[in-house]
């Protein structure tokens, strides 16, 4: 124990500036500091180039080079997922079946009651005719199917990469939807052959939305830990647990009626201007393999 304690003390002693000063005399360290300084200068240069948009072609090239290998990995990943899912589902099959039947009945009733059924139907129809466009009240919606080819490798970002880019008509701000009309995010960067989607669970994401039954308007924001939150709801507006939260259509490139999630907990305090609610999402964002990019135009 004493030995270990001594080692820890020596370890922390070595971090002191005096020790660094002594080591500066060492040629190896000087050389490495020079290399790191050079690399830091290059990083600063890259940041400037990125902000000016000059790096987009390089980024596109990197994604283009990596994407074939990524696709192979994604396919094997899907097979592994399916395998584990099958094993997992065998145990819960009976319960799941009952739950799904009940859920199905309830959803069927809700859908028949609500106005957004038109949009929902269109989404489902599009799953069987991907290239088909639809127009309603002068607003046209086009759907494009894309494969997910990459995911955010870090702990603190919620982004995915898809294999469609500018040459396929993809533009920044367009929404990305998973099967069933579930909104998963929007395009934040579009390159020549690929695009980056910011998931709605990312803290930078904010989507204008309404609740389907009570029509309360608010903003859905992401969070690193708690998932999705519906915020900026007026105290006078009514919120109900289990109410669906859908897109409001106010944002230029995001059509109305895309499903975001269901209200789980309502946070309401009399001394606050707005109330908020936690949203339960219907999809595991880490497992999304195919997405539809929605293009809204007049």
């Amino acid at each position, binding site marked *: 124990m004493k030995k270990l304690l001594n080692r820890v003390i*020596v*370890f922390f002693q070595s971090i002191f500036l005096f020790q660094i000063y002594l080591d500066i005399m060492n040629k190896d360290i000087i050389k*490495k500091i020079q290399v790191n300084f050079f*690399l830091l200068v290059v990083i600063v240069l890259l940041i400037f180039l990125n902000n000016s948009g000059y790096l987009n072609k390089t980024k596109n090239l990197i994604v283009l080079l*990596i994407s074939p290998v990524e696709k192979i990995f994604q396919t094997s990943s899907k097979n592994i997922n399916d395998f584990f899912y099958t094993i997992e589902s065998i145990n819960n099959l009976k319960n799941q079946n009952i739950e799904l039947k009940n859920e199905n009945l309830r959803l069927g009733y809700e859908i028949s009651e609500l106005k957004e059924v038109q949009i929902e139907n269109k989404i489902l129809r599009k799953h069987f005719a991907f290239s088909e466009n639809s127009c309603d009240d002068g607003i046209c919606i086009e759907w494009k199917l894309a494969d997910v080819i990459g995911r955010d490798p*870090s702990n603190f970002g919620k982004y995915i990469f898809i294999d469609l880019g500018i040459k396929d008509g993809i533009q920044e701000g367009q929404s990305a939807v998973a099967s069933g009309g579930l909104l998963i995010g929007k395009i934040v960067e579009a390159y020549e052959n690929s695009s980056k989607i910011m998931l709605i669970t990312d*803290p930078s994401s904010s989507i204008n939305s309404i609740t389907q039954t009570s029509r309360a308007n608010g903003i859905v924001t992401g969070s*690193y830990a708690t998932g999705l939150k519906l915020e900026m709801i007026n105290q006078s507006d009514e919120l109900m647990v289990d109410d669906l939260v859908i897109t409001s259509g106010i944002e230029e490139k995001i059509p109305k009626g895309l499903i975001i999630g269901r209200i789980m907990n309502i946070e309401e305090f009399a001394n606050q201007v707005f109330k908020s609610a936690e949203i339960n999402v219907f999809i595991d964002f880490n497992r999304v393999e195919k997405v539809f990019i929605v293009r809204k135009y007049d």
Partner: protein
Amino acid sequence: MINGKIKNYIFIPLLIVFLILQITFIPQYFPDNFIPNIVLMLLLAGSVINNKSSNIFYFAFFCGFIFDVFSGGYFGTALVIILISVFVSYYLSHILLKELFSYNLLLISTFSILVYNIISIFLVSINDFQQVFYNAEQFFFIIIFQIVCMLVLIYPLTYIIFSKNEK
């Protein structure tokens, strides 16, 4: 100081495979915010070997660049964080590591992963200040989780990519 070198013919293919795994496989099989960074682990394992060349820093730069392309947020953050962590690990191993497989290797890897996570959390707090402190407990577990992953992987990785210089 250990007089050793990295087996590049093993290290480079391993690095590319780890990078692709980090971008595709790893995020799918770990819960949000608990994704271990296997590329960083490989780089740290590489940096504890006192290589005469500066290749490890160029590898770190390359990996950081790929990370930045595939992740969100401000461009350059992953580059800087990875480079700093690798340099810290290199520096500490240079002055502390007399033999490769010792307690010091654990201390160095733990300290480097702490540096990586603390800088990351600091940068996250700029964007989402409230959430970081609201979920301080969770971030504490992220660090512990990564350190455990690091400790499990660092010895086999170091063993695989290490070869002694023969004079």
